[in-house]
């Protein structure tokens, strides 16, 4: 296509857009003039239909079904094949309307009466504006337009196929519920409501994404969550200006406090029980249609180490495992850097026998320690990434064989030492034992600059790297709450669920750093049965 042709095409398209927009505005204005009231002019319905046809009619999956009401005017149903359920359209809309008793001529046909008396669907509403009719139809509803009546009746007829409620695919737990969120917002909200039958549970829905019009729901417990946090979450959601939201990850990135930080300041979960636990503490949850992950805010650094089953198991084994997780994050972060520091600067830090073994194992290695560690880390990430992309039956074999072959040949070829292989294996195992996947990745990621810092300045570089990470953590916030709480100046009450978790009866109050409206979480009188016995 020549440049002139392109220019002509663009001009024509622009003109068509302008015309369409003008027609849409005209139709909308006409509809608004007519209102939703009974007995508006017939031209309004035809204008609406015409506008709908011009906006949606060019699609093969959009159905315009015209029929005549019993001894009444013509009516047209507009729905999208696949999004609306055809059986529902047939049984709950067309049949009742066609068989409905004729309306006395003196009363005229009214959309309100049709909606109230004839349509048998569960959710029906009168919609005056063209914008809203279009949005509802694109969302899976069916619009009913009747000749001579302004506006439309929008009837819920969802019929799209979605994934059923299944086991969580990422957040496994040995104990506790096995239900995970799916991609359908209403089911996800229902999963939360099923666990939290509190009338104070508020669900605020909004549409985000100028083109995707994705439904997003803000959930919180009224009387528990701090209104400032709720207002802030709502403000950030409403401030999003983007074409499309395809997953909760989009929302997360657009509302987080520090976009350049490697640490996630918004917690994500695919488990309804985790969301409910957050709501009960006074946090706010954000659910996004078409996403199986919920967002929970405010989030804290400590919370990233909590696993769902921590709440279901007895406190003593939980403490052992939680301590192990904290230790694992330290191992994943520091082991490669510590190896670089000890092998190149301070071998004396190791016991003599180990130092000699390290020196012997490095004898045939062709690269300096830093490059050896970087190669090994690179190989690990490569294996992990390739394993994710492969079909699951192949990926396990690939991981084992790839790891073994690469490790063995790498050592024989003098690329890595045996000790380096142990270090990298330890790093990988430790990072995967962190319950939050993003944190595991962050820990491995931060290991790289830490390694470089250590390679340049030895133990001093390692300590300064750690101090820099701590400094960054100290500056982070999540929805106004400092990220490092409750380790930094909060009440002893908040330290009950940190590295050490106290037994459940000790949790009488909600975390104070969330400033909940209702601070009491557990009433000891009720727990011992004294209240009921009185």
């Amino acid at each position, binding site marked *: 296509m020549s440049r002139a042709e392109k220019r002509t095409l663009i001009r024509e398209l622009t003109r068509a857009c302008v015309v369409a927009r003008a027609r849409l505005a005209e139709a909308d204005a006409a509809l608004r003039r007519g209102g939703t009231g009974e007995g508006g002019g017939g031209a309004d319905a035809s204008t609406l239909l015409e506008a709908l046809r011009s906006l949606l009619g060019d699609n093969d999956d959009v159905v315009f079904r015209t029929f005549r009401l019993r001894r009444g005017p013509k009516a047209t149903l507009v729905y999208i094949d696949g999004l609306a359920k055809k059986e529902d359209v047939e049984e709950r809309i067309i049949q009742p309307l066609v068989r409905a008793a004729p309306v006395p001529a003196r009363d005229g046909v009214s959309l309100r009466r049709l909606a109230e008396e004839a349509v048998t669907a569960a959710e029906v509403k009168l919609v005056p504006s063209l914008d809203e009719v279009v949005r509802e139809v694109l969302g899976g509803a069916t619009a009913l337009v009747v000749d001579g009546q302004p506006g439309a009746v929008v009837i819920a007829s969802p019929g799209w196929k979605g994934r059923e409620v299944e086991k969580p695919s990422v957040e496994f737990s040995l104990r506790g519920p096995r239900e995970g969120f799916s991609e359908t917002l209403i089911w996800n909200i229902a999963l939360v409501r099923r666990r939290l039958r509190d009338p104070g549970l508020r669900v605020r829905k909004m549409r985000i994404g100028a083109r995707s019009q994705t439904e997003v729901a803000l959930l919180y417990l009224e009387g528990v969550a701090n209104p*400032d*946090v709720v*207002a*802030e979450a709502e403000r950030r959601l409403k401030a999003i200006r983007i074409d499309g939201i395809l997953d909760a990850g989009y929302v997360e990135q657009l509302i987080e406090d520090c976009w350049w930080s490697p640490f996630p300041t918004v917690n994500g979960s695919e488990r309804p029980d985790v969301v409910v636990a957050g709501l009960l503490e006074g946090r706010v949850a954000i659910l996004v249609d078409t996403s199986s992950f919920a967002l929970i805010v405010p989030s804290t650094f400590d919370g990233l180490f909590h696993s769902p089953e921590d709440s279901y198991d007895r406190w003593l084994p939980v403490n052992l495992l939680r301590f192990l997780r904290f230790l694992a994050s330290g191992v994943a972060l520091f082991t490669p850097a510590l190896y670089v520091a000890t092998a190149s*600067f*301070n071998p*004396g*830090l*190791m*016991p*003599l026998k180990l130092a000699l073994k390290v020196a012997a194992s490095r004898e045939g290695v062709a690269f300096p320690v830093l490059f050896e560690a970087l190669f090994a880390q690179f190989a690990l990430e490569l294996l992990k990434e390739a394993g994710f992309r492969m079909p699951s039956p192949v990926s396990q074999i690939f991981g084992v064989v790839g790891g073994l072959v690469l490790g063995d040949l790498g050592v024989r070829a003098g690329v890595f030492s045996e000790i380096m292989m142990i270090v990298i294996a330890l790093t990988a195992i430790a990072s995967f034992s962190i319950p939050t996947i993003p944190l595991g990745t962050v820990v491995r990621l931060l290991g790289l600059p830490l390694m470089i810092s250590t390679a*340049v*300045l*030895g*133990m*001093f*570089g*390692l*300590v*300064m790297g750690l*101090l*820099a990470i*701590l*400094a*960054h953590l*100290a*500056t982070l*916030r999540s*929805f*106004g*709450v*400092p990220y*490092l709480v409750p*380790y*930094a*100046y909060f009440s002893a009450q908040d330290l009950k669920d940190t590295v050490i978790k106290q037994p459940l009866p000790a949790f009488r109050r909600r975390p104070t750093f969330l*400033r909940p409206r209702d601070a009491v979480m557990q009433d000891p009188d009720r727990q011992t049965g004294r209240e009921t016995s009185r």
Partner: protein
Amino acid sequence: MNWFNDRLPTTALVLLLPLALVEPPVLVVAAAGRGGVFSFAPGFALATLGAVAAALLVRRHPGLTAVEISRALLGRGAGTAVAAGYALFWFLEAAWLLRHEASKVIDLLLPRTPVWAPVLYLLAVAAYLVARGVEPLGRWAFVVVPFALTVVLAFYVAGITQAEPARLADLPPGGPGEVAREAWRVAGALEGVALPLVLAGYLVRPGRLVAATLGGMALAFLGLGGAVVMVFSLWGVRAAQLYHWPAVVAVQNVPRPGLAFEKLELIYLGVVVMLGFGRFALLYLAAVLTIRGLLPASPPLGRVVLGLAPALLVASLLPPHFDALERMRAWLYPPAWVFVYALPALGLGLSHLRGPAGAGPAGQGAGTAWGDGRR
């Protein structure tokens, strides 16, 4: 929405004061001279009095920064001049400490590395932290100080158990006069006790200020006193003066029976670097806050931090060798006595003479940011 923004609970002083005082113990060991613990004890007591004087002064002017207190007591002109003096004092102290910590790293860990490398690293991380304000530094201290103090105390206790306590009883030949002079020098080495002045405008619940200051001084006494007692009881006062880094060398030489690792002092060194960095960051913050208070439009903290960083870099690299650094330290003692002890005491006296003091502007200090308004 930022809860707790730029506000410190007064109890934060309990951890910030030790951070400002525990490192480097070499200063106190050198200042204590031949008097040893006999000079250290009264010197530390004097420093505690200085800290309490600063706390009392701040308590009389809740919500006001050091510059504002100075102007309120001395008038605009004289107050500004005194505040400028404080800014210069904190700047020089920070520059000295930056170079001192870098020299320690070079001497003990990286003998072939140029000194500008650790200077630059320390400065960059500190600038990042200080630019975020008082509160993040407070949070950082809350995570680091308990861990660091526990580690250094464990080393000092291990050292003291292996030492000869009788060495502590060596009295200086100069008698009480010499002890008094050295105690005065010890107090001069503890310039961090003026910290309440710097943090004045950011503290809430000033009613607990004196208690928090005393708590902080008690913790600092444990950390610093442990180092001093270990060093003097291991070698005696005269031999201790011969070492550049007496606490580190003491930790290196103390046998730790039953431990497989031979080089545990590397862990100690790591912790010492943390504490040294923390002290430098506090002094840097002090300089930045005072300078910002003096500037007419009160620019964002980050700009002042960035503006001061090159000056700190140059000033810290100016002393060509370690002896020059020690001479610089000696020059800093007289201003320390003036700015850390004399002026706060004078201010407290003036404040009492002038009657009840006013509070700061609404929303500053006094518990408003923490929402409880308790004193």
